[in-house]
């Protein structure tokens, strides 16, 4: 399991967390009146996730 996760995500903790937040935000925004911004917010959360994952300790 650990080897599979290392293969897929390089043992990052920030990446799955950021992905979950991005999906929840995209779903929430679509049901609000802010659907037009969904794409931008989704993208922004993923870029912040990339930044967070880069600051994790290299393995």
């Amino acid at each position, binding site marked *: 399991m650990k080897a599979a996760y290392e293969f897929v995500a390089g043992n990052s903790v920030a990446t799955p967390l950021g992905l979950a937040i991005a999906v929840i935000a995209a779903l929430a925004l679509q049901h609000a009146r802010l659907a037009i911004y969904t794409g931008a917010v*989704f993208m922004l959360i993923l870029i912040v996730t990339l930044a967070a994952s880069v600051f994790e300790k290299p393995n």
Partner: protein
Amino acid sequence: MNPLLLAGTAFVASSVEAVEAVTIVLAVGYTHGWPPALRGAAWACGALAAIVLATGPALVRFVPLPVLQLGIGLFLVLFGFAWLRKAIWRYAGRKALHDESAIFARQTLALQSVHERRVGFATAFNAVLIEGLEIAVIVITLGAAAGGRFAWAVLGAVMAAVAVIALAIVLRKPFSRVPENAMKFLVGIMLVSFGTYWSGEGLSIPWRFGDATVFVILAGYAIASFILIAFLRRRTVAIA
């Protein structure tokens, strides 16, 4: 989705992995002879083709496209981030660059101490299977999320393998001058861009520029990555 972009992504991603696999097959060939090296590589290629044929079309047939796009999109973001952040770390000096010549020398030395033919076969088989597994994952995910366009993804991967093998035959030595990190950086950005676009499609996000949004996403990740590299480099210099 533009099929050429699909084939291009598969080509670049597969080239990187093929370089790593061919380096080890070359080491086996020089130490244990070419028959076990080529037999091991051929068996691994057969196993990889079976994995792609068994899983790819079945995914498209049994899973609805929006679910497939969301699942594969998120997987590609996860997978692509791992590639991209390693490339960013290497550019920022936080992780050592891949040295194919050193890998070739290490592998040759290890193989010279063992003279069994089975070891040569097993080493070549494992190297091609492990490196090729990433190629298989990329071909399956790209082809499936594009609605079953496996032919384009497979074409990109096969062309990459042919190009790398042809280069190995001509050079007859490991590829020490391949800009591997630049290629990994590019592949990472392409994978996360496709992943972001497809997971958005799966979530019914109304992308403002349609299919062309992929290029906007690509530019966004590229700019963010360059900023991160510059920031990490300054931090690394400041710490040193």
